[in-house]
């Protein structure tokens, strides 16, 4: 291995990890908040009288949509200032980089996703000022559920900081920890964006047809929950990588196998997450427009999402094959 002193390894890990956590984790939330503010301006142009409601809705939407970046801030601070007792040198660096990767990518998706419902809510307040309350509550519920991928990635990041034990081989440690970070982070990226998109469809539908708010809420919750399946696959593979890798070969082969499993599951989850979020978006708007057809729409949405997620299942199969067969 390269001859670097342990303290230098620790600094390297801390700084790269904190940079990844805050750099990526702040990016999505910032874009999301900007989308909300932009829609608020556009709405005020249409209905200047609603500025009290509009300001309140925009601020609530930005505050709830900003919480992924606060999760990233918490983990970033921990990565910078956590005393390094449990792991040493390069092992510690690998854990920090993995934690930063997990929380950064995971909060990127959720932060960006939470911006769209906030924007649609501002638009909806301008469109239908009398139903501000139902639009706002639909927005908050949608954003809260769209944050579950970032909650999953906080679990993995804190496991990397507090729970994991490292094997002797530095290369295998690197593969396990960074692989788990990529599997969780990239796996949460797509579902975060997608479930935010579903929520934005539901908020839009609620603002146009407030009388079918209950049915829209049900379609939205199921659509978001199903579109978060790739994030759950990512969490599963991260758990296996961090806790239960049986007899993975040591050295370079171990690095290849574990990192490959993480990359496959993580990147494989991005597309299905975004795609099935788009299905949910359309289904929410369709339910809003034709509440009589809600079961038909729900069933079609579920089948469509299941088919669009088969690629995430392929990626999961490849990941598990790498871990348990090779």
């Amino acid at each position: 291995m390269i001859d670097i002193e342990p303290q230098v390894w620790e600094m390297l890990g801390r700084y790269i990890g904190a940079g990844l956590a805050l750099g990526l984790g702040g990016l999505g939330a910032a874009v999301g908040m900007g989308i909300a503010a932009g829609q608020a301006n556009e709405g005020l142009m249409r209905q200047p009288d609603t500025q009290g409601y509009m300001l309140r809705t925009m601020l609530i939407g930005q505050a709830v949509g900003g919480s992924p970046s606060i999760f990233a801030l918490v983990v970033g601070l921990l990565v910078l200032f956590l005393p390094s007792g449990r792991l040493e040198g390069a092992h510690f660096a690998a854990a920090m980089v993995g934690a930063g990767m997990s929380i950064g990518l995971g909060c990127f998706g959720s932060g960006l996703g939470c911006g769209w419902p906030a924007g649609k809510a501002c638009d909806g307040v301008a469109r239908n000022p009398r139903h501000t309350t139902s639009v706002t509550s639909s927005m908050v519920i949608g954003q809260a559920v769209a944050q579950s991928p970032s909650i999953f990635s906080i679990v993995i990041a804190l496991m990397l900081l507090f729970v994991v034990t490292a094997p002797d081989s530095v290369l295998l440690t690197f593969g396990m920890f960074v692989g788990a970070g990529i599997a969780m982070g990239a796996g949460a990226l797509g579902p975060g964006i997608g479930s935010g998109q579903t929520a934005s469809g539901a908020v839009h539908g609620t603002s146009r047809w407030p009388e079918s708010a209950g049915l829209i809420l049900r379609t939205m919750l199921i659509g978001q929950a199903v579109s978060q399946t790739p994030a759950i696959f990512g969490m599963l593979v991260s758990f296996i990588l961090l806790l239960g890798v049986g007899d993975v070969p040591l050295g370079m082969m171990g690095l290849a196998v574990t990192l490959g499993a993480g990359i496959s599951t993580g990147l494989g989850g991005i597309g299905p997450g975004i795609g099935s979020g788009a299905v949910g978006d359309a289904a929410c708007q369709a339910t809003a427009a034709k509440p009589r057809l809600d079961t038909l729409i729900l069933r079609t949405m579920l089948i469509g999402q299941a088919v669009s997620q088969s690629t995430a299942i392929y990626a999961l199969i490849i990941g598990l094959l790498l871990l348990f067969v090779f």
Partner: protein
Amino acid sequence: MDQIGDRLVWYYVPFTDIEIPMNGVNIITLFNALLVMGVLFLLCKRAVSNLAVVPGRGQFVVEQFVGMFDNLVESSLELDTRAENRKFLPLILFLFMYLILANVMSFLPTSLFEEPTADINTTLGLGLLGMSVAVYSGMRTKGVFTYIAEMMGPLFTQEDATGFAWVLGKLSALYFFPLNIVGEMAKVVSISFRIFGNIIGSGIIIIVISTLIYSFSPLLVGMNLFFIFFIGIVHAFVFAMLTLTYIAVAIK
């Protein structure tokens, strides 16, 4: 914060050396799960104890609650008779009420009360329960052979195929059948890890932020209310609705 992930597991029956099968039992989870069931049983007993023709306040709330779920089940399943739909109502209601109580029980400020849903074994059990009900009722409504033939994919059952197309259709089952089996297993994994990850993640966020800010209590109370009650209730509802939808997909 070092206790994150620690569990109290009994590997042997206490005061003896009889080994407990399946790698021991997590005694806190078991205790809390039974506690939730006991509380739920008493609550339900109390709710139906003195029913009146003209409902009082409590009875009115309970009737509205049950009626809402009755409507949800009926509009999702769309079976022929009302009685057939109502067969599934107790399962869905049980899942919802049990998960709500289980998710919010850690609001009680004792370290003994831990959410049973923060243990993957509980949620995996509930997911398997829902999935077995879905598969069983699917086989029951459609017949075993039709159900399995549907698992073989759309090309397997097409009627007007002849010759080479027929052979290809039958061969396509080799591709679709394993995929559908994996898809069904992925449903169990996703439904049970979803609630587990959310509940344990909310708990961890509360622990970490409380450790970092020490004593600014208004924020902590708000955070507890949001993460425990809001996330807990939303995900209890999502779990119950997803089980219902899986059953509906299986029987149609």
